[in-house]
């Protein structure tokens, strides 16, 4: 009686182990490498972005183009990119305060532009700041995803796996720039994909395509001939919230210190 029970346990143990190993091997065979699609090698690109604040005119073309290209909901709560208008008052001499808190607005994310003139000049400084996902190298959002549904692709784009995301919203909390949102249609997280479906075909992003002044520029840092290299070398650039060390790859030229 005892011998056959031991034998049974041994055999079933072996089968379980073999079964597990076999499934792993089968997975490996099936997977192949479909990600390196014809004509595009993920290891030969590293995408970054550049925005020239002094060229932005707040027309909102980028916001509209992004929503059109990526099928984003039109309601004012879901933006993959948006434009903010900053209005920085002159120093407060009456109360002797130097912390010049900016007045910021972004009506519908800048989707309809900024129709009203805001106000007559009163010694203040005004400008537009386009915002989007910074596609950070050390992104806090991918760090906190519990299952690996959002990730940093080999070519430097932070993407979301819509079929794997649980909708727990931890990444939305972790992003310091506010560029993530929950798409109520899929109940998963959504964000700027750097128009991954376009850049892998040799096109530029929808926002760059539609920007009339060339304020936005997509760059491939692994391409030695990319104009971004020269710009980063010669211009005074900053990233948002550098003290958080997110490794943001979106460089702003002419970013004022008051920008949040």
């Amino acid at each position, binding site marked *: 009686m005892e011998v056959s029970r031991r034998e049974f346990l041994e055999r079933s143990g072996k089968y379980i182990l073999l079964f597990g190993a076999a499934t792993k091997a089968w997975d490996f065979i099936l997977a192949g490498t479909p990600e390196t699609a014809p004509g595009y090698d993920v290891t030969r690109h590293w995408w970054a972005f550049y925005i020239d604040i002094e060229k932005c005119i707040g027309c909102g073309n980028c916001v509209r183009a992004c929503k059109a290209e990526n099928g984003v909901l039109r*309601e*004012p*709560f*879901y*933006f993959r990119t*948006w434009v*903010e208008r900053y209005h920085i008052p002159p120093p407060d001499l009456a109360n002797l305060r130097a912390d010049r*808190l*900016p*007045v*910021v*607005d*972004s009506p*519908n*994310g800048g989707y309809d532009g900024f129709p009203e003139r805001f106000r007559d000049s009163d010694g203040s400084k005004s400008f537009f700041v386009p*915002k989007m996902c910074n596609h950070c190298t050390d992104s*806090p959002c991918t*760090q*906190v*995803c*519990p*299952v*690996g*549904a959002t990730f940093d692709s080999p070519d430097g784009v932070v993407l979301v796996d819509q079929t*794997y*995301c*649980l*909708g*727990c*919203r*931890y990444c*939305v*909390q*972790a*992003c*310091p*720039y*506010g*560029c*993530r*949102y*929950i798409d109520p249609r*899929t*109940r*998963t997280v959504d964000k700027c994909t750097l128009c991954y479906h376009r850049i892998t075909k040799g096109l530029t992003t929808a926002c760059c395509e539609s920007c009339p002044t060339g304020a936005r520029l997509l760059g491939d840092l692994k391409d030695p001939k990319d104009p971004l290299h020269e710009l980063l070398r010669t211009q005074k650039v900053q990233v948002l919230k550098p003290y*958080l060390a997110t490794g943001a790859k979106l460089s702003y030229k002419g970013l004022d210190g008051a920008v*949040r």
Partner: protein
Amino acid sequence: MESILHSVEGFMYPNEVELQWSILIVLYPFLTGIVAGAFILASLERVFNVEEVKPTYRLALLTALSFMIVAPLPLQLHLGHPERSFEMYLTPHTTSAMAMFGFVYLWYLLAVLVIEIWLEYRKEIVTMALHATGWRRPVYRAMALGSYNVSPRALEIDEKLGRFVTIVGIPSAFLLHGYVGFLFGSIKANPWWSTPLMPIVFLFSAIVSGIAAVLLLYIVYCFLKGIKRSVPCLDTMARYLFYAFLIDFSLEMLDLIHRNYEADESLKTLNFMVHTRLYGSQVLLQIVIGTLVPIGLLAMVQLISMSPRAREGIYVIASSLTLCGIFAMRWNVVIGGQLFSKSFLGYTTYKMGFATKEGLLPALLLMALPFLILWVLVTLLPPMNRDEAVH
């Protein structure tokens, strides 16, 4: 939903206007806090040999189990895709505190709570399995796992193993609730959450809420069953509640003082939030009613001599206010952390629905559920007999 836009004050990043984590996420740390706290109280007797609290030992374990069973439910309800939640077991991302949840939860539920309760009750389970009738018989027989040995030696083995499990259970309880604190405390993007003190504050407020919950449940249970409450037991629990409260309050004050002293760029916006949108829940409910008043009442009991009945009345009031205060603390952390903009230039409001997926109604139902489960558990596994309570 457009109405939320009208209640935005100042500037918020467009994607921030709508809150991400609702009252269900407030409920989750409240529930696991009581689990951890109740278990710590139980371990006082088992490991640290505080004999006075022995009457509450079994009740504390069953309370922990009831709340533990309900704990994942608010999370499941909150997820966009609850059917995918098992993915945390398949591909846990080891850099994410949230990924720990599945394993810590299973470990604590099975390896600590279930085993400890099973070992503690095994004698009664076997007795009932052999003598019970009706629907209870198969339940007890299943619980007995087909083994009916309750000889002194077997029970001695159970006792030793139970003690070992409790010892392992203490750091496990710390982990169960501490990781929630870390989950918030490690978010550098949010200055209201980001502090190394967060896991410790969560843990001590958990201990406070656990002791208060078991104190109340002990009084209620004995009252319903006509069992005399043990005065030394109540006094000891109240004393430990008082000590835990002092530590918890000190930690929270330390955080506040530190913030105000360092006065970094987030201070203005956070202070404004506390004085306006969070005033009721933070200053009034959490600090005054939920912390200062209970501490005052408990201190009064330590300093002035009162009759046991008066003391019991004070304990009931103090424990109830404590539980409200701890809930408010969870609310202030979770909701408060989302009311201000990460640009530090604006505020939004939390619009809680009623009969929606993440509204007040499911939250209330989920709050009531552990008591329902506890009622079933104390029916199957009575925590004390009439003669036991008289010490």
